[in-house]
């Protein structure tokens, strides 16, 4: 079972936290900090698994993570999951994000946290894997999107400003970094 999915950036700023087992709010933040501490000091060419931190539960748990440009994707899983399988799953999730957002970057995750959650929900549900087929996942997201559009009406109008706001924030033009198959734009952001 997947106990938690954490996405944070190179400075440890959480971008998405999803727990499938109940932890109190402050505990959740503590787990994010501990996990960041464990993961961030590791080189990029060491293995992608490490024994779980103390907070989320003992020797039966592992952290399985991937590092893409500015973001860490960490899945905290128990021993019933295949390590390499989860690595593939992270890849599927990121590739799906990339398809849905067209060249996903950290900013997309910040400004569309809700959307990221919805996409994740099509992959993982209650800590178990719902679907691994990327086309199927994207199709589901598209269905949602069409429903959103059809309801858009008046309320959608003021929302156009979002893209403008996004550009306001960028001190310089994003550069592209090639990681595996995905282009992830890496804006150099001042951490906040």
């Amino acid at each position, binding site marked *: 079972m997947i106990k938690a999915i954490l996405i944070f950036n190179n400075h440890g700023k*959480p*971008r*998405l*936290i999803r727990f499938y087992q*109940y932890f109190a*709010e402050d505990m959740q933040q503590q787990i*994010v900090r501990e996990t960041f501490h464990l993961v961030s000091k590791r*080189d990029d*060419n060491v*293995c992608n*698994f490490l*024994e*779980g931190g*103390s907070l989320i*539960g003992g*020797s*039966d*748990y592992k952290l399985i993570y991937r590092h893409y440009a500015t973001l860490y994707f960490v899945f905290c899983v128990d021993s*019933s999951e*295949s390590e*390499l*399988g989860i*690595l*593939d*799953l992270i*890849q599927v999730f990121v590739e799906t994000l990339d398809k*849905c*957002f*067209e060249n996903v970057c950290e900013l997309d995750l910040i*400004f*569309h*946290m*809700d*959307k990221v*959650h*919805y996409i994740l*929900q099509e992959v993982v*549900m*209650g800590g*178990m*894997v*719902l*679907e*691994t*087929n990327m086309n*199927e996942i994207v199709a*589901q*997201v598209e269905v949602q*999107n069409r429903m959103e559009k059809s*309801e858009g009406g008046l*309320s959608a109008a*003021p*929302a*156009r*400003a*979002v893209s403008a706001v*996004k550009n306001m924030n960028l001190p310089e033009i994003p550069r592209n970094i090639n990681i*595996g*198959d995905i282009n992830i734009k890496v804006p150099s952001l001042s951490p*906040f």
Partner: protein
Amino acid sequence: MPAVSKGDGMRGLAVFISDIRNCKSKEAEIKRINKELANIRSKFKGDKALDGYSKKKYVCKLLFIFLLGHDIDFGHMEAVNLLSSNKYTEKQIGYLFISVLVNSNSELIRLINNAIKNDLSSRNPTFMCLALHCIANVGSREMAEAFASEIPRILVAGDTMDSVKQSAALCLLRLYKTSPDLVLMGEWTSRVVHLLNDQHMGVVTAAISLITCLSQKNPDEFKTCVSLAVSRLSRIVSSASTDLQDYTYYFVPAPWLSCKLLRLLQCYPPPEDGAVKGRLVECLETILNKAQEPPKSKKVQHSNAKNAILFEAISLIIHYDSEPNLLVRACNQLGQFLQHRETNLRYLALESMCTLASSEFSHEAVKTHIETVINALKTERDVSVRQRAADLLYAMCDRSNAKQIVAEMLSYLETADYSIREEMVLKVAILAEKYAIDYSWYVDTILNLIRIAGDYVSEEVWYRVIQIVINRDDVQGYAAKTVFEALQAPACHENMVKVGGYILGEFGNLIAGDPRSSPLVQFNLLHSKFHLCSVPTRALLLSAYIKFINLFPETKATIQEVLRCDSQIRNSDVELQQRAVEYLKLSSIASTDVLATVLEEMPPFPERESSILAKLKKKKGPGAVSVTELEDSKREGGELNGGGDRGPDTAAMAASNTSTPSPSADLLGIRSAAPVGAAPSSAGSLLVDVFSEAGPTAPSAAVNDDGFLSSAPPSEDPAPPLSEADELLNKFVCKNNGVLFENQLLQIGIKSEYRQNLGRMYLFYGNKTSVQFASFTTTVSCPGELQSQLNVQTKPVEPLVEGGAQIQQVLNIECLSDFSEAPLLNIKFRYGGALQNLTLKLPVTINKFFQPTEMSSHDFFQRWKQLSQPQQEAQKIFKANHSMDTEVLKAKLLGLGTALLDNVDPNPENYVCAGVIQTKSQQVGCLLRLEPNAQAQMYRLTLRCSKDSVSRRLCELLAQQF
């Protein structure tokens, strides 16, 4: 076009997020967030009804604020309102907020359930999926109660959309995990199993998680899944990479599903049906063959997916442990991976090989890789991988290679990462003992261990070496000689001093013939370390000195001089002082004969499981334990080493604070300040342990411990418990609600509920008079030991209770470990000026934490037999106090919290029950048998529990009930 339309967001949200991002400091950020929270709060509270869009926007802002690590304590109601919106996006964000922020105990669940019910019956697949997601993510018992019967129907109905089926499968799985008793699979079993044949691979992917979980719990009912899983697997494995279209991932057909199928098969023994087995073996061979084929793609994802399947196949081969041919192939494959350039593969290969090493067919094959593994331990850059290598070395160790492996592990210890040193030390100690052919090698190894990693050598390790030396006389002389040499190092670890003191005290005579290690030289050597040591070690050394007096009369004068000096006989630590005084007296009064009897050589220890092994098992168990222990021992180690720099008094204080409370702590009255339930292995208690076996040598330690506590005058404030307090308590053993106490003034009612090791109790205080109660206070206390066994939390109540009014108090109860006393409730108030003061026992009894366990007659008696040690059983024969009516008895036994098992006892008159008591630290399995004898109006009650104190307590409690 991207699937997510980036433009259609919410403007207010985007502005808020950018504001936060522009904040220059943490303070500014917090200020901005607080401003926003105030704004949202006022909007939610305002008179103007918010439209759906605004609610959605604010709820989304709250989610963002939550992500940044701020508590969100409002907005739940608004989120619940969004659920009943008929706009999809509003519903969606409502559900998201609830799955992220609502926990399963929330009071809102009922409202949420209503919305879910509507959406489930809406026939709109998207809405149904949202509702199912919510159930799967929150998964509370109340939800299970509401939907456990509905979900299986959705899952197997012919007209359900595939996407809904997928969600329903995982939803059901979650409910089964939280409330297995509510999910009754009976009639659905075969249709659920047949989901493995579903056309839609997504449905199979979701269903297999459900089936795996159900199979683990009910292997017999679900065993038909084996042949279905094999045929599914075989179809995938033999398919060309294009057959499965979208489920082909980087040229590998359905890797995730293949892994899950192989996992499912690991719940079962090898298939008995020859055809099925043949097909499966064929699959496994194909998978192994594919590993040797050239890759279809250079992408890492391709090899990842391929190897994910390969590793699961190998796990299955190891699990079956019956096909020597496959096992050897698996081992060779892993051997290749050991030298692979991918770190992940090296890691996984080491991990799998660990399990392979325990199979008799492949143990030898694993051993051929020893050089590679040792090399990994030395050269891997990644600590995770080195840890696996150390584990594998431990697993592949046997008599033939023990010396080599232990030597390698010892040399690795010198540079090992701090995080794994303690575990390495335990492993070295165990291997050294297990494979020792000559015990001088064993002694050398352990002393080396202390020299290299003294701080990480736990008490168990040095304690064990002493046990072994004492039990084997062939090694005693060598041990004495070796410790004597080791102690000559200018700086040696305190653990070395402990071992040295103990062994020389027992066997110093064996080396006393050599003038270089004459008695006086030995004594001076030990005493030169004395002042650098902590209190427990010094106490041990004092015992060694008195043993010296017996062994070598010529040292008597010198030692008496040492004992007599002020720093011993007037030591501020009572333990040391008492030993000095008693040993001095003993040595001067007693005749040599008496002395020789009292200070006789230690008798051999009874053979028992190595305490080190027990410790390693514990470490490998629930993780939290191992970490705190590690920290404790680190902390302790630090203090011990630091002791030398400080005065003896501060060192003593430090020791008494870090280890279990020593008598000196009692004197100062700071016992409660000492950590409650500190690690059981701390220095003080072990020392007592070592010597309590010795009996006569340590007359002091244990006796003092409680003396001061029990003689302390009881505090005068709260009244002693009422005389009928126990009787009142007994009324509540088998029920949770009722009136606890009543007199002319006050009535106290109780409602309580328990789940796992947690409980909540509502106390209702009713003022029966027409006059106000003033200064009404209640205090709950856990006397004595109970403090560390039960955690009761509450908030103070209103100090005024009007005439005729009732006030409520909520207690949250957590059971940390099993207990036998009841917490006390003290109530004080003024009624017409007179102080009323009464104390009751709160009806919190150990049986409240029962979890019923259903089992068959066979299982019951098997477990009954397993619990056959005399102390695990408690039995009482007693006269019936109440009606012996069957229904009444059944109701009582059910009220107890156990499962009442039918058709188990051969005699239908008898009642048998089973349950598990859930405490935070452990689970205690309990079996009960009640045999009524209607003619004699008597009962015989027998309890067998995995913990003896629980048997006794339950027996006491229950004997009052019937």
